[in-house]
């Protein structure tokens, strides 16, 4: 045994590794308990709900490219619309990169058709003169804050205006369907006030540039500066010249995005140059938001419906059960096979798979809390497929041990030398599997990502388990008489393995 000194030293403290792993698992368990992650977050295909994938493109009749900023703006507009439905745990997110980004909307429960119609409309930016304004809540008396409503305001509009309650979420969803050529009533984006607005006079696409800046002389106040194109310069010059002398609130021009008033600055003077500045008590975030809104308006996006999927809770539950059943069945079969084939050593693979399973489950719980990981059907499939990959790591190791025993080593020595050789194979092979998972994740859409994520996660867990559990446990077992004496049921009996006859040979 003296020449195997090195490898023995390397594995001198299998107990310590096992304790570290146990501590890690305890820490994970504690995090789970502390963060209150009691259940794995399930995807909509497992609990029912509607998911819509939108593919943004340039609205008809517009030129330009779909930019990341435009998509971010679109996401925030759609989020506003979706939140107005008041369904808990709704999500709106952009996915993919560059111009190929998609917007994914997921809403649990039974809201199917309404959502699909709501989210797919183009949101446009328009400038409209304010004709009247009032606090957001519905008021009993019509047009209470304006003594003389402008001529364009019909009694019907005035009545609608009075009834409009901007404190209700459903009135803040925006529709994108505000008619550009007629006066409208609209809420402030955050519901604080409501407005009667004249027909649109300047359009979003007539804005050529919008930036947020800070005025260094004037007490570091944030402002937004705007540059109009030729058409916009003329139109904006005309509206500002007309309203600047009117009484408040009619000297305000509202910036309306998606049927909601983003800002309604007062016009201090006629602005014929096409360069305007909006000042006020902006915070940095507010100024930048407004600038983005104005930029986005320069390029309204239309949305192609890529995919709409509506899963009823019944089907969701069926799919969840089927996924779990398949998982348990697969795990059971693999455990059974490894016990039958590897006998005593099979205990190691049973233990390792159970530890790997527990770790994966804990990670599912925690990642759900931390990064909003949701488990989908494809994800479950990824985890089940990974059972095979995990089991293979044990097979590679066990076969190496058996090879070493065949060459006449004692079991204790075979466990160490076999490990050195198997280790490399396992790392290289798992690495290929991780490359596959990462690339799948970044190139793919929707369900594929869930699959790639769980496949990658379980492969990492496999590496952890093989190093921190399988190897130390095997080292321990090799010290037991049952295994080292080569019992027929141990799975490493030199006799049944056909070991070389001169088994006294030591490397």
């Amino acid at each position, binding site marked *: 045994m003296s020449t195997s000194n090195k490898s023995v030293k390397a594995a001198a403290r299998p107990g310590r590794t096992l304790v570290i792993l146990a501590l890690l698992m305890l820490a994970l368990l504690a995090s789970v308990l502390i963060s209150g992650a009691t259940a794995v977050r399930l995807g909509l295909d497992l609990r029912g709900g509607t998911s819509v994938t939108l593919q943004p493109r340039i609205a008809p009749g517009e030129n330009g490219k779909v930019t990341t900023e435009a998509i971010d703006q679109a996401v925030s507009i759609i989020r506003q619309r979706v939140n107005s439905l008041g369904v808990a745990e709704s999500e709106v997110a952009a996915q993919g990169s560059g111009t190929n980004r998609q917007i994914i909307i997921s809403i649990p429960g039974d809201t199917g058709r309404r959502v699909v119609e709501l989210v797919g409309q183009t949101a446009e930016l328009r400038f409209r003169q304010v004709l009247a304004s009032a606090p957001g809540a519905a008021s009993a008396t019509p047009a209470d804050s304006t003594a003389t409503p402008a001529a364009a305001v019909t009694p019907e509009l005035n009545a609608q205006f009075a009834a409009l309650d901007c404190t209700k979420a459903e009135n803040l969803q925006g529709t994108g369907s505000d008619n550009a050529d007629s006066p409208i009533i609209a809420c402030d984006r955050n519901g604080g006030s409501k407005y009667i607005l004249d027909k649109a006079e300047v359009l979003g696409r007539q804005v050529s540039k919008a930036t947020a800046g800070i005025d260094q002389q004037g007490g570091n106040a944030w402002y937004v500066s705007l540059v109009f194109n030729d058409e916009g310069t003329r139109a904006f010059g005309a509206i500002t010249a007309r309203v600047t002398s009117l009484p408040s609130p009619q000297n305000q021009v509202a910036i309306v995005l998606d049927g909601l008033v983003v800002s309604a600055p007062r016009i201090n003077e006629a602005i014929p140059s096409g360069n305007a500045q909006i000042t006020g008590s902006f915070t940095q975030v507010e100024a930048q938001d407004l600038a983005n809104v104005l930029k986005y308006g320069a390029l309204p996006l239309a949305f192609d419906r890529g995919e709409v999927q509506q899963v009823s809770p019944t089907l969701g539950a069926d799919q969840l059960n*089927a996924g779990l059943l*398949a998982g348990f069945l697969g795990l059971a079969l693999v455990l059974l096979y490894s016990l039958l084939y590897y006998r005593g050593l099979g205990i190691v693979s049973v233990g390792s798979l159970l530890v790997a399973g527990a770790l994966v489950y804990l990670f599912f719980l925690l990642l759900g809390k931390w990064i909003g990981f949701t488990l989908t059907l494809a994800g479950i499939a990824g985890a089940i497929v990974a059972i095979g990959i995990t089991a293979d790591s044990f097979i590679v190791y066990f*076969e190496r041990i058996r090879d070493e025993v065949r060459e006449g080593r004692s079991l204790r020595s075979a466990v160490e030398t076999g490990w050195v050789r198997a280790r490399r*194979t396992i790392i290289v092979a798992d690495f290929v599997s991780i490359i*596959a998972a990462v690339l799948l994740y970044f190139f793919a859409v929707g369900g*594929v990502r869930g699959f790639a994520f769980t496949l990658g996660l379980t492969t990492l867990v496999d590496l952890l388990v093989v190093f921190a559990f399988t190897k130390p446990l095997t080292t321990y077992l090799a010290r037991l008489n049952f295994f080292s004496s080569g019992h027929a049921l141990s799975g490493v009996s030199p006799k049944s*393995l*056909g070991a070389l006859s001169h088994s006294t040979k030591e490397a």
Partner: protein
Amino acid sequence: MSKISGLGGRLHSGETSIDFIGKRRRWYALSGLLIIASIAALSLQGLHLGIEFKGGASYTVTKAGSTVAQADTALASAGISNEVIVQKVGNDKIRIQTGSLTSEKSNALQDALASTFAVSIDSIDTQIIGPSWGKEITRKALYGLIGFIAVVMLYLAMAFEPKMAVAAIVAVIHDVFITVGIYALVGFDVTPATVIGFLTILGYSLYDTVVVFDKVRENTRSVTATSKMTYSQAANLAVNQTLVRSANTSIMALLPVGSILFVGAGLLGAGTLKDLSLALFIGLATGAYSSIFIATPLLAVMREREPAMKALAKRVHARGNSQVLATAGAPSEDVTQKRGPRNQPKRKGRK
């Protein structure tokens, strides 16, 4: 059990040896035939693409006692007749698949289904795919495929050697061709889940090849120094030595995939689980085959072209081929044994 172990031992020592590399032309011919058949099936029949790729809509109504005739009534009342497929799935489900629909038509059909089957609209499982969506998915899958092959090739070339990377990738492409060919031939539906399956096969097939190549490299490292075996013979021994592992791995991988297939097809009828596992099932089988019968022989042939390996082959043949086969099994001449401990410190230093 002991019989299998005994076989494992004999394969390890070289006592029992299956000549994979020598008979490579046979396997090449078989694979060539399969690939030609695949290409023929692909060009004649094409793949049976699901609505995810060509655009369309699918509705599933779950209600006991529902019939196909009811679905036909609903379709007629909504005035929809393009590319309609109505299927009964399981005991209580009816699935209606149509070509691309406008949102008005889709809503009309949902309403008609809800009233005909007397269920609520929200309980109808719906999937609507825009016509341009499929192109997007196909493009992404293609990018994924190309990116994957490039990255893995680079990695294998660094971790092993460039020729191994080439052989491994050829084996993977071989697997994809045959799997796609089987899909075209049988006419299985190709859905995004199937594509996931295909992409996973790539990973799996490479994984399998990596394990075999690792052993090949170990066996051939000192092959020129000892002059006892040609590269091909050493590589063949490696395949034989990893045969038990390959078989076990394939079985262990197929067990869970088989159970997904069983549950997915048996309980759910159709959908993600079935499509995914079917692709995996077929791919795993071809993957196991190619890493043994295609990748390793290919590698051996490429390496044998090198001058050093040619010289080695000459030396070995000069010593007499029969002698090599005889000594390979004898303990004192065992290549692996002589070489093993000597290489160990080197490995540690590298880590």
